């Protein structure tokens, strides 16, 4: 969606402010929000793409004025209600007023090290050959889906080149909605900075994105 999260190329946000000796968390509530989001996510009630979709669905003014973990908290509360794990009233009260919903699994402390070091790979066996090869010219689709998608606006409708083929992966657009869809080939697509930014480009610069096959059309050599 064309939400406030899609920030590439935006002006007006000011300078980057690195913090010396930055701690991993800045307060106890951030620690708890982080852990709650991961642990509730582990119940399998929604996908990681679903969480990203919930965060970027916040109203733009709210998204841009909230801190990172405030965004996580607001999205987590919204997902809990939307998926029926608890009601808004229960969240406001901080107490349960009814039975819990069944969930697929609950994260136990002892399974964290093996489970998290194995990771949660999102590549899948392809069900069709890749349409593009390395060095093929491509044109990104100029599409503006209302749901979750992972092609930023600043690279839509642009000419690029396939640089790497990563394999077939779960399509975030479908996964966010728990919609069944075949895995799609994922490519690194490279763009000359001038193709994206014209005269404002960094001289000689390049930008790459990881793009799903469905985001791409065959291009013509530049």
């Amino acid at each position, binding site marked *: 969606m064309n939400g406030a999260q899609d920030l590439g190329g935006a002006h007006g946000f000011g300078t980057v402010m690195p913090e010396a000796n930055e701690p991993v968390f800045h307060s106890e509530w951030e620690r708890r929000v982080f852990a709650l989001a991961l642990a509730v996510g582990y119940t399998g009630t929604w996908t990681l793409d679903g969480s990203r979709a919930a965060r970027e669905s916040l109203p733009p003014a709210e998204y841009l004025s909230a801190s990172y973990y405030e965004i996580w908290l607001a999205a987590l509360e919204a997902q809990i209600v939307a998926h029926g794990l608890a009601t808004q009233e229960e969240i406001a009260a901080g107490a349960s007023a009814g039975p819990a919903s069944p969930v697929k699994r609950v994260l136990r402390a002892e399974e964290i090290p093996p489970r998290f070091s194995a990771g949660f790979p999102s590549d899948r066996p392809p069900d069709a050959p890749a349409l593009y090869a390395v060095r093929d010219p491509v044109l990104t689709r100029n599409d503006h889906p209302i749901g979750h998608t992972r092609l930023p606006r600043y690279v839509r409708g642009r000419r690029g080149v396939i640089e790497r083929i990563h394999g077939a992966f779960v399509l975030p657009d479908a996964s966010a909605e728990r919609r069944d869809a075949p895995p799609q080939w994922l490519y690194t697509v490279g763009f000359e900075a001038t193709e994206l930014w014209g005269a404002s480009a960094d001289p000689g610069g*390049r930008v790459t994105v990881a793009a799903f096959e469905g985001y791409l059309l065959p291009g013509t050599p530049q």
Partner: protein
Amino acid sequence: MAHDHDHHHDHPDHAHGSSLTPIEARVRALESLLLEKGYVQADALDALVEMYETRIGPHNGARVVARAWTDPAYRERLLADGTPAIAELGIGGRGGEHMVVVENTADSHNLVVCTLCSCYPWPVLGLPPVWYKAPPYRARAVLDPRGVLAEFGLTLPEATRITVWDSTAETRFMVLPLRPAGTESLSEAELAALVTRDSMIGTGQPLTPETAQ
């Protein structure tokens, strides 16, 4: 955020919660509810925090870089297929299932960003710093990388070509920085101590034996 002690000290019914800021109270309420419902377990929450606060961080990525600097065959494997090469050092997992390592050279530099959210290679770098997740960096890294680097105190020669890697899928990027000059006699562990988090994002260079003092 300042605690709101002064206003509530005289009200016994507020004595328990009066020192909590609104967001602290909101998070505490949510945690209580989720524990009560049985969706989360307290010791698992503590273990997650402990893992990402103390055990997973840029010291992991620094070991990868130092190995690549000292072992040419490892460097080749790392650049060809990042995930299994990183796993050789016992490093990997959530947020780093599909690693791509990109190498700086004498005339090219790499910079990693996630313009859409906060994608970052957790197993090698830990959780991202605030600036990486905040709008200024996400907005400008792709449009004005040289200007962003200058804000980190890094000025590259004009002839150096910059490639910006926008982390728009589950592939996660780590920069293999150039080995600093004058480090031929250093051990792998000594080299790892020169590798900074920012040098693996591309917003900095490794320390040198002099700057590390």
